[in-house]
């Protein structure tokens, strides 16, 4: 994810990592964490929108068959803001 200085890895329920200078470095570090356990890497653009998703030992999530009333980007932003909201921390 983009950060104030560079790029960070953000995991639900955990603190951000130290910032990486480039997005490529951040992605490569994230991949190292997913060599054995199932998981996924969500890669964001500089504007915070999701650019790509890599699935590891997990099925790819399919897109719904058609568009809804709301733009997918708007739903994405709403969902992302809630997922990282401290009120919904995994420790709560």
């Amino acid at each position, binding site marked *: 994810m983009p950060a104030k200085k560079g790029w960070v890895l953000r995991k*639900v329920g955990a603190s951000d990592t130290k910032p990486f200078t480039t997005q490529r470095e951040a992605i490569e570090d994230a991949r190292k964490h997913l060599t054995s356990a*199932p998981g*996924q890497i*969500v890669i964001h653009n500089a504007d915070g929108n*999701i650019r790509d*998703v890599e699935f590891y*030992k*997990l*099925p*790819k*999530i*399919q*897109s*719904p*068959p*058609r*568009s*809804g*009333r*709301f733009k*997918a980007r*708007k*739903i*994405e*932003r*709403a*969902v*992302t*803001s*809630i*997922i990282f*909201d401290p*009120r*919904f921390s*995994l420790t709560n």
Partner: protein
Amino acid sequence: MAKPYVRSKDVFINCPFDSSYKPIFNAIVFAVCELGFRARCALEIDDAGDTRLDKITRIIGECKYGIHDISATELNPVIHLPRFNMPLELGLFLGCKRYGSPSQRSKSLLILDREPYRYRNFISDVSGQDIHTHGADPNRAIMEVRNWLASKGGILPGGATIQKHYARFVTMLPAMCQAFALDSHELTFTDLSWVINKWLISAR
């Protein structure tokens, strides 16, 4: 009507759409999506083109898999008749399997009911199909859907993992809906599918 192309990831969900059934419906949609499949149902139809039956037939034709919940087949206390839409759509799906092209014949279905063997009282001809019970419990419905789709091949998340994710999703859903000034009960099927899609991509 053009021959439908059967999509190997599409799952037709044939179930009641009333509010009392919503917790089970949402749980089934969530499980289907987390397992890497695409949930389809009659609720995705919103244009005024073809007849409703034409649209349902098209969706059924496009889905390799079908989940048919016949638990709402019971007498309406006011009109003293049961609702026949679910058994009708189950029949259409079975008809594709029986009389369709080779790809239609490869369809697979799961039939869900509230209690074991209740179906024998009103649709005994489906004996011999894959009929399971969810006991009106969303977590059991998730487990049944997971175990059935896992039997189709591939490495899929476990039922307990999906149940845990679904519980977290349900906790967050009202807050996510606030962004659209909606109550979570006002989400359409397509909206819900997109929220689940984005949640699964970002939160699991």
